[in-house]
């Protein structure tokens, strides 16, 4: 019996376009649907397929790539495919973590887009039985001086805070990066971390035919109808009203109740399986849980509590109304489940039964007491659960390297960089101040101050200074977490960009002394049907896999966001990496800031040429033939092992990673944050610009008590790492002499001149760094 599509879809079906295409399905996909059903789908079924076979739900372009990632590792309890990765941390505890994008909704309505992004990723965490303990938000926007960008930044930041602050999960880190490629398509990636008792691990499966399917949480309205199919899987433009679905509005208060109720249901062992409702709504939650357990479900559409009258069947089935959960419950526990929901003030309804036939069947007219369709009930749709999930279509996309693509410089044969700035006559201190005050490197305080970063009383190190550190109550342990993505280099060489992102994120965790446990990732790319975009995606996944293998890190989950393109073009490929690590003894924790005047300052690792993709190049430009710096994954692994051993052995007083803005910025930050200057000397190996401001990886600045210096240097050498003693911390200025026995080393041979010394007061550094972002965004005027 045909189901008619009404209202919302009228606009797209009115033209001569066949329905499946209007819903974003190709002719091939329609054929594949017919294959799986053995007949033509009716309209309701087609709507469900269109949502479930969207890129967002089915990973139809990326699945073959993602299969190549390493997923095994010490302690991994749940990996990709579950709502979140889960890794054991000892003491009977485990950590759950996952990152997800909400890019397109945030471009349409920044506040609600970001807010519901936070809500969605939190649900992934507590669905597993974990209490969410932290959020990190990785944000990317266009030109900060642009009015539209400012509107987006303001809305997104308020949205992240508005939701996270209310649910009482601290936002402890993230990123904020500006690049023109995000002008029409901002990125809002949110990572959440949860802590669970391992015995409470709960999976999103629907075992046991006869069990009840219970929907609890908010009622179902017309939120985000078409969001999953139309919005998430075709190129987004602002101006096409037909692609503007009704916006999803988040209710963090309802989410807070949902967290408490869900965790109580799990704690009391009342559920057999639990699944949050995200993209694809009821269609997705029912088919995924059934398919995972090899069961089916009979869904009584009339039983779904609604917020609005006259909702069409397809609207109920694909609505993305927020703050809802699906539980699979034994019949004898129904009353207890209802009691918990009632106490938390949440609507709760039995909407169906688990069946043995493997189909998702949808009826109207109710079920009888035995759980079968009542006499006179009408069956509206019947689809094998597998057809919607594990057996969904997979596309073999074609990738092609762009003709202008630069090959990654092979290790050992670096391209020479521009010797550019700063040379004699150009004050490197002025360059440093310009970098520190630039939108991408200035202090993020104006943003993260709008977040509650201390609720739950675990935050040992919050946003602002490298990785976040959260103590684990009742143990001596701490979790350390960060996110990173190197998009500029990914734009040049996606393999390298992804590998660098993994290296930097895990390095940020290792320098606290913590051992990285695993990786979650969010792959933000363009239209995969464009061979160049697909090549970027596949190269990035290869880089991600290679780096994770080299560093011994399992990939436990993630998210793919494609079609990030707007009228102004595709975004830079942005492989966002989240890493969580464990520090066994929080007493050994070290931070990035200088600790004590008189301490020795040491650089471990060495600069290699290559300024392309750096913040310095963004400001000053790079030579036309220049490439990004190479990454030696073996050395990266050795460096991280070294610093963890140094911290565990009490050798290091502080450790700071060299990343955006290079060594000079790393030193300036360590000095500002410690309120202690330094009298240092940097031996120039390639050129002053590359040594001071280049972003070659695998470098850290370590300080130690002078009496520990020898042991520290020895340890670094044992790991095969180059070490340079830069000087001593102290004073209220950052003073850096450049030279290599008075010269600039190889660069001098190529005509580069010795640059002047860098000499800036801490007060000037602080001024540039702390004011930069507010100025760039025009927030000075408001505040």
């Amino acid at each position, binding site marked *: 019996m045909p189901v008619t599509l009404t209202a919302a879809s009228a606009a797209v079906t009115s033209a001569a376009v066949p329905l499946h295409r209007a819903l974003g399905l190709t002719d091939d996909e329609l054929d594949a649907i017919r294959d799986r059903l053995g007949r033509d789908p009716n309209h309701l079924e087609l709507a469900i397929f269109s949502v479930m076979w969207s890129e967002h739900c089915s990973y139809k372009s990326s699945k073959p790539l993602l299969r190549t990632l390493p997923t095994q590792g010490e302690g991994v309890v749940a990996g990709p495919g579950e709502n979140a990765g889960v890794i054991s941390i000892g003491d009977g505890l485990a950590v759950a973590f996952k990152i997800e994008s909400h890019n397109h909704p945030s471009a349409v309505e920044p506040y*609600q887009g970001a807010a519901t992004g936070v809500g969605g990723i939190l649900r992934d965490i507590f669905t597993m039985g974990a209490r969410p303990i932290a959020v990190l938000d990785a944000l990317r926007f266009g030109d900060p001086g642009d009015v539209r960008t400012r509107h987006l930044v303001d809305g997104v930041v308020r949205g992240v805070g508005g939701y996270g602050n209310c649910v009482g999960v601290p936002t402890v880190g993230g990123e904020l990066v500006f690049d023109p490629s995000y002008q029409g398509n901002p990125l809002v990636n949110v990572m959440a971390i949860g802590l669970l008792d391992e015995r409470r691990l709960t999976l999103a499966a629907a075992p046991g035919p006869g069990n009840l399917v219970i929907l609890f949480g908010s009622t179902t309205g017309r939120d985000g109808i078409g969001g999953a199919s139309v919005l998430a899987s075709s190129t987004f433009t602002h101006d096409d009203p037909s692609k503007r679905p*009704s916006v999803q*509005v988040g209710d963090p208060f309802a989410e807070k109740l949902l967290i408490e109720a869900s965790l109580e249901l799990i704690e009391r062992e009342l559920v057999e399986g639990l699944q949050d409702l995200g993209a694809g709504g009821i269609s997705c939650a029912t088919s995924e849980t059934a398919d995972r357990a090899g069961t089916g479900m009979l869904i009584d559409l009339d039983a779904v509590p609604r917020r609005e009258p006259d909702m069409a069947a397809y609207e109920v089935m694909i609505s993305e109304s927020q703050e809802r959960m699906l539980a699979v419950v034994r019949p004898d526990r129904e009353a207890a489940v209802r009691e918990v929901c009632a106490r938390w003030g949440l609507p709760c309804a039995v909407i169906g039964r688990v069946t043995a036939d493997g189909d998702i069947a949808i009826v109207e007219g109710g079920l009888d007491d035995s759980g079968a369709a009542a006499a006179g009930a009408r069956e509206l749709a019947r689809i094998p659960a597998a057809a919607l999930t594990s057996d969904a279509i997979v596309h073999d996309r074609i990738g092609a390297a762009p003709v202008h693509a630069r090959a990654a410089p092979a290790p050992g044969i670096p391209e020479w960089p521009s010797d550019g700035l700063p040379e004699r006559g150009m004050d490197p201190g002025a360059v440093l101040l310009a970098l520190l005050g630039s939108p991408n490197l200035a202090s993020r305080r104006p943003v993260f101050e709008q977040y509650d970063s201390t609720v739950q009383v675990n935050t040992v190190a919050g946003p602002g200074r490298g990785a976040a550190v959260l103590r684990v109550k009742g143990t001596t342990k701490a979790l350390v977490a960060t996110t990173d993505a190197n998009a500029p280099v990914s734009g040049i060489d996606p393999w390298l960009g992804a590998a660098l992102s993994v290296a930097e994120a895990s390095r940020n965790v290792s320098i606290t002394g913590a051992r990285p446990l695993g990786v979650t990732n969010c792959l933000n790319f363009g239209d995969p049907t464009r061979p160049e975009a697909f090549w970027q995606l596949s190269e990035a996944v290869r880089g991600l896999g290679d780096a994770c293998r080299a560093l011994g890190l399992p990939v436990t989950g993630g998210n793919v966001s494609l079609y990030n393109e707007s009228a102004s073009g595709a975004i830079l490929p942005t492989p966002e990496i989240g890493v969580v690590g464990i520090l066994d003894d929080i007493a050994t924790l070290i931070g990035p800031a200088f600790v004590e005047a008189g301490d020795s300052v040491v650089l471990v690792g060495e600069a290699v040429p290559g300024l392309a993709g750096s913040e310095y190049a963004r400001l000053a430009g790079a030579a036309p033939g220049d490439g990004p710096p190479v990454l030696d994954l073996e050395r990266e692994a050795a460096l991280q092992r070294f610093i963890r051993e140094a911290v565990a052995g009490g050798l290091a007083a502080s450790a700071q990673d060299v990343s955006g803005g290079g060594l000079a910025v790393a030193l300036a930050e360590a000095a500002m944050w410690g309120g202690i200057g330094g009298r240092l000397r940097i031996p120039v190996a390639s050129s002053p610009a590359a040594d001071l401001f280049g972003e070659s990886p695998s470098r850290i600045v370590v300080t130690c008590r002078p009496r520990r210096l020898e042991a520290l240097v020895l340890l670094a050498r044992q790991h095969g790492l180059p070490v340079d003693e830069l000087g001593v911390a102290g004073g209220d200025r950052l003073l850096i002499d450049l030279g290599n026995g008075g010269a600039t080393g190889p660069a001098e041979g190529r005509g580069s001149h010795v640059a002047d010394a860098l000499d800036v007061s801490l007060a000037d550094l602080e001024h540039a760094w702390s004011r930069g972002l507010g100025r760039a965004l025009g927030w000075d005027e408001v505040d």
Partner: protein
Amino acid sequence: MSTHRFAVNVTPKPGILDPQGRAVEGSLGHLGIEGVSAVRVGRRVELTVAAVDAAAARAVVERLAAELLANPLIEAYVVEEIAGASSTLSIGAGEG
């Protein structure tokens, strides 16, 4: 030149979730109030406009409402002219 006082009533569009309205409804029980339903919570912005005439003044308010005061994706608004002598009158606001 004349001055006019307006109010812009901004409310969540029909169909858009209104968590505030729901919260108010949820609290009525504690207050012992019955028979109240369909609560929607929005904003009310009152402002004074000086313009050549009433039509010009209203045009300014319409623009302000559409571009700044309401978010057209999720909110609807209505502009109404009100007496300058409202309780929130501030000095200098004329009667129009």
